[in-house]
């Protein structure tokens, strides 16, 4: 993975020192609340319902074991012993003390980590495919490009005070696992007719209150122009994005109100002015790629026969392997998901003991690396077949083997009313009810792939509008109600879920979900996934059943 050079390290050290000074000035009354809010947000620090929340960046979701141990140590020393992985592959601490944040940032800097631009109206952490570099359907590893974007976006002097936050995602595979169509900018690695690799650029996608699917504004961008094109988009957005209403300030609204053709013209005109002199050289790409060179894989890993033996002897292991591991581009290896969706813990949460153990497992079985996914799980990306059984046993002892990846209980869930000052309703409680109700694994596995996303308010941090089943908490005169949507997807077939009908009461949510699943089971054709059935039969059969007995 990318290793900091002296310049990278100097910059993050200087950032820690800067934020320490800013915190001291705020505590002395030399910075106003408003000023400090802006500055602390750009260092990942929110003030939440109960305590500050610190969001730490995990660039494109990649961590090494040393960093994971540091996250554990911070959870122990500065928090309540656990932390939470977010839908943008980042990690959040819910209970740090404001005065201690500069110290936490200093600890992070010691392992090449930071919380820079993880919040605020600026360029956020660049996200990517959690299977980058190991996915069989990948054109090329997207991470070198992500790192180049990370450096360009870090401390970009022109774009630190944008109309609103700005998120970039990069994907290089046939299956879009990075939800690129719902980002302010989506970057796809593509190959042109003459076999050269370049980028397809999408703009104007986004979730939140007004979910919009991004549109292609550049079908093919030559490789060397990546940064100048991004800069042109950002400049147009910075100058023309709306600043009169924060709910209309994202680039998706600018693209929508301007019209994609006119917007594209504006970007291209700006790009023509700046592209010369901003080229990324081939040698820079090549040297960046050396940071992400393939691991020294065992060339005879595919000759293992112990896995088949273990599979035939242990059906629980076999089930886990089916749901919680996936193909690797090297024969003899698999990528292994650590499910952070155990029935008895909030989705995405992990304890410091688990983190320490995960770091050890990464060292022993996956070249010392761990990835975070936007569905709030972790991945050991490079596990040899012969090690899968042992790894499973060790992970099982850590409660990381719930065999539910991609199933109904692999929910995305925001912190909700329990932690977040923006929330209108609880979300973790709904997730718990779903877990309690759907506790029969055979039933869950029979349902197959279903993505449930639960957000506690319109801001939609859990991406409910692209959940196959989306659940959105709303406040009605102080009572928590939930709107249900069906048919959303953030993958290749990107779509925004349709509203099922009026919001349902908290105690009726699980019954409604159960009814929806009954309708699916009744209508599905053989192995047809839930999403396909919804798209085929439409929302009406579901609506009729759910609202049949009020």
């Amino acid at each position, binding site marked *: 993975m990318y290793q900091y050079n002296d310049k990278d390290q100097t910059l993050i050290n*200087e950032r820690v020192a800067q934020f320490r000074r800013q915190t001291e000035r705020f505590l002395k009354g030399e910075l106003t609340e408003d000023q400090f809010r802006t500055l602390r947000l750009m260092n990942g620090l929110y003030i939440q319902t109960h305590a500050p929340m610190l969001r730490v960046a995990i660039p494109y979701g990649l961590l090494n074991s040393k960093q994971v141990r540091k996250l554990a140590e911070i959870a122990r020393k500065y928090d309540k012993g656990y932390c939470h992985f977010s839908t943008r592959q980042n990690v959040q601490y819910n209970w740090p003390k404001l005065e201690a944040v500069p110290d936490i940032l200093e600890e992070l800097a010691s392992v090449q980590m930071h919380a820079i631009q993880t919040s605020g109206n600026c360029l956020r952490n660049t996200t990517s495919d959690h299977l980058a570099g190991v996915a069989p359907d990948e054109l090329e590893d997207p991470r070198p490009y992500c790192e180049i974007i990370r450096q360009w976006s870090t401390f970009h002097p*022109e*774009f630190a005070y944008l109309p609103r936050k700005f998120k970039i995602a990069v994907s290089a595979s046939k299956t879009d696992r990075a939800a690129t169509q719902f980002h302010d900018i989506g970057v796809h690695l593509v190959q042109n007719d003459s076999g050269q690799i370049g980028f397809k650029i999408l703009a104007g996608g986004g979730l939140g209150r007004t979910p919009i699917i991004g549109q292609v504004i550049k079908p093919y961008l030559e490789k060397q122009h990546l940064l100048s094109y991004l800069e042109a988009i950002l400049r147009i957005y910075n*100058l023309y994005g709306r600043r009169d209403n924060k709910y209309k300030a994202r680039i998706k609204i600018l693209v929508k109100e301007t019209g994609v053709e006119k917007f594209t013209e504006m970007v291209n005109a700006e790009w023509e002015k700046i592209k010369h002199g901003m080229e990324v050289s081939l040698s820079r790409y090549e040297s960046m790629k050396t940071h992400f060179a393939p691991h020294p894989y065992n060339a005879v890993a595919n000759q293992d026969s112990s896995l088949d033996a273990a599979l035939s002897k242990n059906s629980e292991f076999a089930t886990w392997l089916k749901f919680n591991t996936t193909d690797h581009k090297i024969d003899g290896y698999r990528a292994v998901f650590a499910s952070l969706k155990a029935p008895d813990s909030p989705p995405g949460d992990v304890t410091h003991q688990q983190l320490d153990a995960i770091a050890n497992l990464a060292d022993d079985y996956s070249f010392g690396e761990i990835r975070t996914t936007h569905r709030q799980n972790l991945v050991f990306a490079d596990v040899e077949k012969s090690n899968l059984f042992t790894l499973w046993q060790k992970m099982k002892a850590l409660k990381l083997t719930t065999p539910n990846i991609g199933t109904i209980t692999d929910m995305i869930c925001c912190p909700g009313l329990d932690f977040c000052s923006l929330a209108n309703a609880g979300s973790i409680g709904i997730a718990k009810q779903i877990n309690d109700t759907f506790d029969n694994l055979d039933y869950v596995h029979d349902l197959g792939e279903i993505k449930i996303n639960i957000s506690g308010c319109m801001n939609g941090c859990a991406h409910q509008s692209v959940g196959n089943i989306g659940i959105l908490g709303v406040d009605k005169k102080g009572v928590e109600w939930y709107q249900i949507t069906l048919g959303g997807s953030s993958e290749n077939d990107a779509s925004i879920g349709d509203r099922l009908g009026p919001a349902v009461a908290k105690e009726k949510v699980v019954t409604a979900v159960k009814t929806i699943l009954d309708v699916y089971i009744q209508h599905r054709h053989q192995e047809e996934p839930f999403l396909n059935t919804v798209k085929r039969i439409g929302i009406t059969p579901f609506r009729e059943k759910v609202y049949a007995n009020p």
Partner: protein
Amino acid sequence: MQILKDQQLTDNTWKFLPDDAELPDEPINITVSLRRWLQEQEILKKYPGKLGIRLNPTDSVESVPVSIKNVQLIEINFPVFTDGRGFSLAKILRTQFNYEGEIRAVGEFMLDQIYYLSRVGVDSFALENQENLPDAMAMFNEFSDSYQTSVN
């Protein structure tokens, strides 16, 4: 009043003339809004003092004439510190208008924005609170390196 120019304390010799104010009798150095500058070309031509322009975030780049290159001072106003349009305006003035005169940040910008402002081409700073001048001087050196090329 003192300002910071090229990272040094300097006496300010300019005054902003609000749109509803008449031109002064004395030939002092004044800045006027872009609107006034565009609308009162003929009158302003006869003004014996030096003329500069004050840009606001709402001034569109397209309405800025190429002749802006010739003024000695362009002020970029920050009515609120969160409005980052001024950062792009400064960068465009330097890199696309090839403006070489003074670009001065005025208004409600924060001390903590001085470093980034200086990197997009702002080379002087008028602080509302003169007591902050010493602290402001230290802001130019917050970082010793950067990932992007600088205008300055």
